[in-house]
């Protein structure tokens, strides 16, 4: 198992090299020249040339990439053209917000998705099934920004229950320890901060969770429908155990693999930054920031973020794969199979 994990991590290297080359080229081919954007429309030609020279943009492209990748290997992802701050700092200032939002959203999505999926499968073709799948249909088809705006209008505007934007009331902001406000506020015993951070999370996390929940619910339903037909379910019923136990401990436990796969993929993409959600709720995460940087041709930032997100995506998938072996004893990552 350890060997398998190690091999999979080694396989990360070619993936990341590939990703870095592609994003590097895309930025340089398709993005406008950053110099006029940084220096302003009225900058002189000389100033533009000086700036390009200083930022290495006049070098041949392979040399630019070489400088970039050697820097990246030492943990130096360059500096932002605008803030002049190291890219790593820029990323880590925003990434915890994204992770916090994504984790809460995926927990919501998994819980309600599996719940709806299981009920739909067990009560197949009933009113519960139809209602559940109707919710799922809405979930996959409703644009997230629209759902976000509706949530804000209703819960924030009409009812005044929840804040509509930001992560926390600045007055209650906890000490920055991990960057996760829920954790930091608990660690510093700042209960008001915790409550406020939580209240800020509810709407964006719900909006973000809706799509994933719908996907998870559908997958759970189809996986459960298949598992419930299996012979061992009949055996379990013949043992005289309760139907709830048959469904959870026998059917769901066996149907989990495709569900976990979907949850992993969803988490991977949520961690990539939920651009629309972050924009609608003014969530200071990585997604909205990256989009702004793409529009401003801030090459180093975009490259750094994409590289990080790609790594996380691959790692989440690795974790899912490793998790399979715990879910199903028939899956063994032995030497032969790798």
């Amino acid at each position, binding site marked *: 198992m350890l060997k398998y994990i190690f091999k999979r991590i080694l396989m990360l290297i070619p993936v990341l090299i590939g990703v870095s080359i592609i994003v590097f080229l895309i930025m340089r081919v398709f993005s406008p020249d950053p110099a006029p954007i940084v220096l302003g429309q009225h900058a002189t030609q000389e100033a533009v040339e000086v700036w390009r020279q200083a930022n290495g943009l006049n070098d041949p492209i392979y040399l630019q990439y070489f400088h970039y990748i050697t820097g990246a290997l030492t943990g130096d992802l360059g500096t932002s053209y605008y803030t002049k701050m190291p890219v790593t700092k820029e990323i880590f200032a925003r990434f915890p917000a994204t992770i916090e939002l994504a984790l809460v959203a995926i927990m919501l999505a998994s819980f309600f998705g599996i719940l709806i999926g299981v009920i739909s499968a067990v009560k197949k073709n009933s009113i519960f099934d139809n209602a559940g799948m109707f919710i799922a249909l809405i979930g996959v088809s409703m644009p997230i920004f629209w759902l976000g705006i509706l949530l804000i209008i209703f819960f924030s505007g009409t009812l005044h229950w929840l804040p509509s934007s930001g992560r926390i009331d600045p007055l209650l902001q906890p000490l920055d320890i991990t960057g996760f406000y829920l954790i930091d506020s608990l660690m510093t015993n700042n209960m008001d901060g915790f409550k406020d951070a939580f209240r800020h999370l509810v709407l964006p996390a719900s909006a973000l969770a809706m799509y994933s929940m719908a996907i998870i619910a559908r997958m759970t339903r189809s996986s459960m429908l298949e598992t419930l037909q*299996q*012979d*061992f379910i*009949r055996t379990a019923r*013949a043992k*005289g*155990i309760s*139907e709830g136990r048959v469904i959870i401990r026998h059917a769901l436990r066996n149907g989990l693999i495709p569900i976990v796969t979907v949850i992993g993929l969803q988490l991977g993409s949520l961690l990539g930054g939920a651009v629309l959600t972050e924009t609608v709720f003014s969530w200071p995460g990585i997604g909205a920031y990256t989009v702004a940087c793409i529009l401003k041709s801030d090459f180093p930032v975009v490259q750094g973020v994409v590289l990080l997100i790609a790594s996380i995506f691959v790692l989440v998938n690795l974790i899912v794969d490793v998790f399979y072996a715990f879910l199903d004893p*028939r899956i063994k990552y032995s030497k032969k199979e790798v």
Partner: protein
Amino acid sequence: MLLEVKNLRTEFKLKRGTVRAVDDVSFTIDKGEILAIVGESGSGKSVTSLSLMGLIQKPGGVAGGEILFKSQDLTKLSQKELQEIRGNKISMIFQEPMTSLNPVWRIKDQIMENIMTHMKMSKKEALARTVEMLDTVGIPSPAERANDYPHQMSGGMRQRVMTAMALSCEPDLLIADEPTTALDVTIQAQILELLYQMREKFNMAVLLITHDLGVVYEAADRVIVMYCGKIVEEADVKTLFEHPQHPYTVGLLQSIPQIDNESDEHLFMIKGMVPNPLHMPPGCSFSDRCDRCMERCTKEMPELQEINGHKVRCFLYDKAEEGELSAK
């Protein structure tokens, strides 16, 4: 009398119509007896056994009749009350040992689940009982094998595990639904032998569902032959094999290959196919396949009549003829 089934009817309500999979079936099983139900696929034998367990899934259900187990009517019990009987007083082993065990659980956990559901035992006691049961059904080094997952065992071993699980609460009745069908012939014999031993050891009754007449001959005390959801013949095993009455039973027995038959004759086959359950022939359901079909057979369904403990559903044997059953 351990089990008395009276006029059991099980129906499946499909969009295209209602299928009566078990139609007016009555039989009894005594303590310690092995009763075999024989029939082709679709004859209703498996549905009968699942009806006894209360395990018929929607859109099916028991539509009528009584299932008296120790004088208690199982059809009147709630699912919760049935759960107390299932796996405890009546347990079941299935046809497909490869797929009937939960693939993600260790076998000890699956057996312990059965034990701890019905017996007040600590985990430790339940584990000890599990190992003891695995030993009883002939699993070598049971304490180690208890930690195996089903995929680490062979088909015969898995059927032994299933048997151990089914017997773990010492049931009064074991329903074995084609327990040997998916196994090699040598393993089949072992499993039958095991059922026989277990019957002796626990003094339990066995309802053996099979389509294999060889298995019936070896194992059963009494035999019921089913066709299209109805009992067509019932007798003790010796009588049935020596003096089969119903043309269907006669056909079944003639279709068994005889190894010592040196003639070049083709193997006997019953002509035609089992009728579509949605379009049963009027009259006797076997009439369109029967070599001795009479005009009356195509119009009305014969009653199951009993003469000297031998029951048969056929107009060839009319009660009018007293005493011995004899072909006209």
